[in-house]
């Protein structure tokens, strides 16, 4: 498998060096593996910090900037970062108003962020966490580690980041993050597996006419495998799963996300089907995103995230944002 890398061992560090060179608005600490706003902490503002395995670009480092994250902690490929990274990020971006961690519900992320939260609290820094668990492909039961955090992470980071910018207190921002999560659902479908630089081969085998339904974002297989169908049918499967869990009506935000290896033309095909589905359900698509926002290396496929908006969340979504990967209104 061909990869544009120097060495499988140094992929994350080399990519961070590239981010630093490409985005002067970021301060990238390659040694400590953290990406910070170059403007530094703002006194009286809650610092919004996220992180997770690398390989999901632009998540999370691509969302560091005005109106979104204060810092991101990239782990190794598909591996959660370590507590030292979040601790360092929290210390450096703390503006006196506390730190909010946005955490995807994966065992490793949860454990490492918990350890970092304890360490920050020991230093007298107030910490709150929002756990994102929007993936309806996971049956929410005692038999799993709970629903995974996927596409809604982007929404939670944007909306909590916008609220933090207004100087809102930590508790209110955390509650709002939980509300965004509660109003959001996602479902992902893979056409191909992905290839991690270290393994150099596909994480699983998928026949030429097969798709995986209900994937997460780590190249892991989904829940079931089925024959490749037209986009309309795949979208129906994804949207039915979402709608069964959270009946879709009223104003909604839709994100059609590419997994890294799918061209935009296919994502637009998918978006047309998603929009038609929602129209049939009587929901109004008032905000939308189409593109690669939370990826899985070079995997082909897509995920759909739907969030039921209200007026307040819509305003926060529309608030200015200026990051490498998301930018409007400023």
């Amino acid at each position: 498998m061909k990869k544009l890398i120097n060495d499988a061992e140094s992929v994350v560090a080399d990519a961070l060096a590239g981010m630093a060179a490409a985005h002067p608005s970021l301060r990238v600490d390659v040694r400590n593996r953290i990406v910070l706003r170059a403007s530094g902490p703002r006194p009286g503002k809650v610092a919004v910090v996220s992180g997770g395995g690398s390989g999901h670009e632009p998540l999370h480092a691509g969302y560091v900037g005005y109106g979104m994250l204060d810092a991101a902690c990239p782990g190794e490929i598909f591996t959660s970062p370590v507590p030292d990274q979040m601790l360092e990020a929290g210390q450096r971006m703390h503006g006196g108003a506390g730190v909010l961690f946005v955490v995807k519900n994966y065992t490793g992320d949860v454990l490492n962020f918990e350890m970092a939260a304890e360490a920050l609290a020991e230093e007298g820094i107030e910490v709150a966490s929002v756990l994102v668990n929007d993936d309806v492909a996971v049956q929410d039961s005692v038999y799993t580690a709970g629903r995974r955090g996927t596409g809604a992470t982007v929404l939670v980071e944007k909306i909590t980041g916008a609220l933090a910018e207004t100087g809102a207190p930590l508790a209110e921002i955390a509650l709002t993050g939980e509300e965004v999560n509660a109003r959001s659902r996602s479902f992902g479908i893979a056409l191909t597996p992905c290839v991690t630089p270290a393994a150099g081969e596909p994480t699983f085998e998928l026949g030429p006419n097969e798709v995986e339904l209900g994937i997460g974002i780590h190249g892991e297989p989904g829940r079931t495998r089925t024959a490749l169908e037209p986009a309309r049918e795949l979208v129906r499967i994804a949207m039915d799963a979402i709608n069964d869990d959270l009946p879709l009506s009223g104003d909604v935000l839709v994100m059609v996300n590419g997994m890294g290896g799918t061209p935009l033309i296919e994502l637009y095909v998918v978006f047309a089907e998603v929009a038609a589905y929602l129209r049939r359900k009587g929901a109004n698509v008032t905000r939308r995103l189409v593109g690669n926002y939370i990826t899985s290396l070079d995997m082909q496929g897509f995920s759909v995230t739907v969030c039921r908006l209200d007026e307040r969340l819509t305003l926060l979504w529309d608030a200015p944002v200026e990051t490498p990967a998301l930018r409007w209104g400023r």
Partner: protein
Amino acid sequence: MDTRFFAAWLEECARVVHEQREYLTRLDAAIGDADHGNNLDRGFTGIRQALAENAPKTPGSLLALAGTTLVRKVGGASGPLYGSALRQMGKALGDAETVGLAELTGALETGLQTVRRLGGAEVGDKTMVDALAPACVALRRAVEEGVKPQEALSRAADAADKGAKDTVSMQARKGRASYLGPRSIGHQDPGATSTALILAALRDVAVSWAEPGAAGP
């Protein structure tokens, strides 16, 4: 068993994990996210470096340093689980300069409790607990029977190995593999497998130290 014995154990762990990293990653690719071998290899390489820079005086401080290093280097779920377990084992051993089999057994049981508390997993969930728990049971029984350390640790390693193999038929209920539901059946759990390797390393070091001419454990 003194500080040098435990240093030899960690050294053997580092060697075995490095040798088996592709095997562990392959197991993980089937039901997880294909990084377990590389992550543990990074962690144990870090332990090697940490021990080269510091020379802890007691088995307890040695294991605590190793645990902290794993938490700092590994990430994922295995970093906090293995790292905290080693750290709590180190604490359990206290300041003692040498450790008997009973103390080591108690420390391993503390490690098991730590893993259970953090990961919330029980026997049968298809996790490292499925190797660690039977090893602790076998070790406790051996202590009660008063067998020699190398024999006791052999039984523990065998129990861990059997526990790891038994995960093949289980459906995962914790960790990344749980998302696969019934599709996780038929694959050996990578975490249970690495636990079995670590306990086999403990046995191998105990056996080689017990050989004539070697410093006894």
